[in-house]
């Protein structure tokens, strides 16, 4: 059965780090380019959610239409734990959703895509959401530090659609390149860059690329860990300008997410395309035949172009490499406690209880056994709207660690008539009473080693809407 890409969405994190700043910090002059870095409240889960949300929006589908979720990332938020279920919950997918989490190397993204394609081809899943997200953590002072990026891309796979998937080729070789051991926080640089290039990367991927049998004029997305390997491989394969060059320049090396991030913009134009991936000694090429523009592809460049420059110091802090001394405030209950077992679905899924009698939405449901307006105890559980206007707000300047000041707290009147109080995702500089805002997923904190997720408020300003 044919498997097609029928929608695409991408997401980039907030911060942009210039190579020049990193070099200067380590006593080296010069440097070109930049990479994308997660703010302290972003990670592979928030990026994956944002990319999926945009793909669903482009497909004009609701979460209830999705019956499979495949996620590839080398950095799942829980190295071992409920990463996939958290993503499914924030996307409001049903409890019987099919799918899996692929990890272990930067090949994980393409593995997720292929696994989803197989499930759709087999007829087991009708509409599969595939997302690749990455936020690599390089060692400080290493050669790849400034090249290491972050980002996400998601596609919807269905039996019919504008861009059928074609043949695929995978080759494997058991060699050590970049790796991270158990309990090691950062990815190690390759032991010998020239050895990797000459004996692993170029031979393996040249073989894979040639075997892919791509049509003439195909657009190529090539993996590019250091900013040079990609173009070198492109010349070997004689494929001309790389489709992935623009996103690589914008975001840096997005690892397991790079195959789809690199091709996403090209899905807007009809013609053949090839998606290549590398990681952990495996290389894969996958053909895509774009027969009509893929919904969502036209906004890829805009979505990747967001972001603001950040200093090296801010990046170190966001990456958890620069930590304030002293005590930090813990949540009132630990993340493994009953409160989170009771409350995770309603908080992650942003659910409310709509009173059957008077229509008032009570949020969150588990602490509202009686309606705040009329006292009734009959409710329908509903997903809250994600857009609204500011009822009122504050900007807190006196927060202890782990909070970062200024921290806005906003009361929002949502489009469905409900009201909610949430942290702001910005400095709050553009908050005004009555101003339009949207709710986005963010990591609230890492609590006793466990990431805690929730929704934050972001102003909708010209060009910022998601």
């Amino acid at each position, binding site marked *: 059965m044919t498997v097609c890409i029928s929608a695409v969405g991408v997401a980039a994190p907030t911060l942009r780090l210039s190579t020049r700043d990193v070099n200067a910090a380590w006593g080296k002059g010069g440097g070109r380019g930049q990479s994308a870095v997660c703010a302290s409240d972003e990670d592979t889960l928030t990026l994956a959610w944002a990319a999926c949300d945009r793909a669903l929006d482009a497909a004009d589908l609701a979460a209830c239409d999705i019956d499979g979720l495949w996620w590839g990332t080398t950095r799942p938020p829980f190295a071992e734990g409920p990463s996939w279920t958290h993503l499914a919950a924030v996307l409001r997918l049903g409890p019987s959703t099919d799918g899996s989490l692929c990890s272990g190397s930067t090949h994980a993204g393409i593995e997720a895509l292929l696994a989803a394609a197989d499930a759709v081809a087999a007829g087991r899943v009708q509409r599969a959401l595939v997302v690749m997200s990455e936020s690599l953590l390089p060692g400080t002072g290493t050669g790849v530090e400034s090249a290491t990026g972050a980002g996400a891309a998601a596609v919807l796979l269905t039996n019919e659609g504008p861009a059928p998937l074609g043949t695929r080729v995978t080759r494997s070789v058991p060699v050590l390149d970049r790796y991270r051991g158990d309990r090691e926080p950062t990815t190690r640089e390759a032991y010998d860059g020239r050895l990797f290039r000459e004996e692993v990367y170029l031979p393996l991927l040249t073989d894979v690329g040639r075997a892919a049998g791509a049509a003439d004029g195909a657009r190529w997305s090539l993996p590019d860990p250091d900013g040079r390997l990609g173009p070198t491989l492109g010349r070997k394969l004689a494929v001309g300008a790389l489709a992935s060059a623009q996103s690589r320049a914008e975001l840096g090396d997005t690892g397991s997410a790079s195959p789809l991030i690199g091709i996403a913009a090209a899905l807007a134009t009809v013609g053949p395309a090839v998606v290549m991936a590398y990681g952990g000694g495996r290389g894969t090429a996958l053909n895509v035949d774009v027969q009509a523009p893929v919904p969502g592809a036209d906004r890829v460049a805009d979505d990747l172009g967001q972001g603001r420059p950040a200093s090296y110091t801010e990046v170190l802090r966001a990456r958890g490499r620069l930590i304030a001394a002293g005590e930090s405030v813990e949540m009132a209950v630990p993340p493994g406690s009953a409160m989170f077992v009771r409350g995770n679905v309603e908080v992650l899924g942003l659910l409310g209880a709509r009173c059957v009698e008077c229509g008032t939405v009570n949020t*969150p449901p588990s602490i509202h056994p009686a309606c705040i307006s009329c006292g009734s105890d009959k409710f329908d559980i509903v997903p809250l709207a994600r857009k609204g206007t500011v009822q*009122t*707000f504050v900007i*807190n300047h006196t927060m202890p660690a782990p909070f970062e000041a200024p921290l806005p707290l906003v009361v929002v009147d949502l489009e469905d008539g409900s009201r909610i*109080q949430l942290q702001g995702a910005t400095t709050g500089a553009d908050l005004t*009473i009555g101003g339009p805002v949207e709710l986005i997923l963010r990591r609230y904190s890492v609590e006793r080693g466990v990431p*805690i997720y929730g929704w934050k408020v972001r102003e909708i300003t010209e060009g910022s809407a998601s």
Partner: protein
Amino acid sequence: MSWNKVAVVGAGLIKMGELFDQSYEQMAKGAFDSVVASVDKGLDPALIDAAFVATQRGTLWGQEGIGGNTVPSAIGLSGIACTRIENACPTGSDAFRVGCMAVASGVHDVVLVIGVEKMRDKSSEEGLLARAAAGHPVYTRGESAPVLFAPFATRHMHDFGTTREMLASVAVKNHHNGALDPYAHFQNEVSIEDVLKSAPVCHPLHLLDCCPQTDGAAAIIITSADRASEFTDKPVFVAGFGVATDHPYLHEKSTFVGLPATTLASDRAYKMADVSPSDIDMAEVHDCFTITEILDIEDLGFVEKGKGGIASLEGETALDGRIPINTSGGLLAKGHPIGATGIAQLTECWWQLRGDAADRQVEMRNGFALQHNVGGRGSGVSVVNILTTNA
């Protein structure tokens, strides 16, 4: 006319401040000594047959829970009936209300209501830490105390044109009054400009818009009105009280320009006392932040909704104004040792009603003073007590 079953025959407090040299128990003893000394005809402590202790939290000095026995032991009355009351920022005023009901019921004759709060055995940052972890673990994450009130300032400014200068005028007035009150934490005046230029704490509130963290204790002796003459020839009676609640979370609020719990509680107190706001000569109200006092004087009916800011700026609430508010310096200048706060406010009302308020004395035309607190999650609890010299 009014209820008047219970009389206040003694009231006293200790100097408020960062009392690093005093334990919780020592503060309690100080307040107790002060209240005993305040009884005109003297008080044999053995007559006290019950005590109600107001302490809002023990965690700031390392105590998860505080029962009713700590204070009796500290003041030399171990063995008496004693219950600890906790009801958020109105803890002290609610303990007073409960004590009044105990006397009015005839169960107890002479009751001690004592508020004691240790706020500064932990650093103010650690106090802030504890606060920021309160409420729902995700939805209210990051709420420190100013977050519960600052959204009302944002909205009040938006809806009514209230300015930061108007907010600041509350702090200026209360610091002025506090400088006249020997028990106040702060003994200095501040200017509008001082408030405006103080460090931002929680937009739109700055440092001098906020009350300090203060250690303190205060105590009151109440008896049945019939027995008041045993203790004083200048008794003050309890004319009425009210308590009311509202939803605990900000997103459940019906309004951001008022605190409905205050209005409800005061309606009940006015009805019980059979008075209206215009009968009140002076009031001690909950000014944990400048905006809170502005909301209070509107919600209590002293000024029209939306006019609290301009009324403050124009001096209507000053010592010589139409309705003097927080003559003691209020929470902003006298301090806010939570459990003691309401009882310290009642002490000021008692002094004003008896003409004992020295340089702060205001004209008591009708003989009614009002005391008010509001607080807790979402400012969802309010207590109003009304005292009178009218028999």
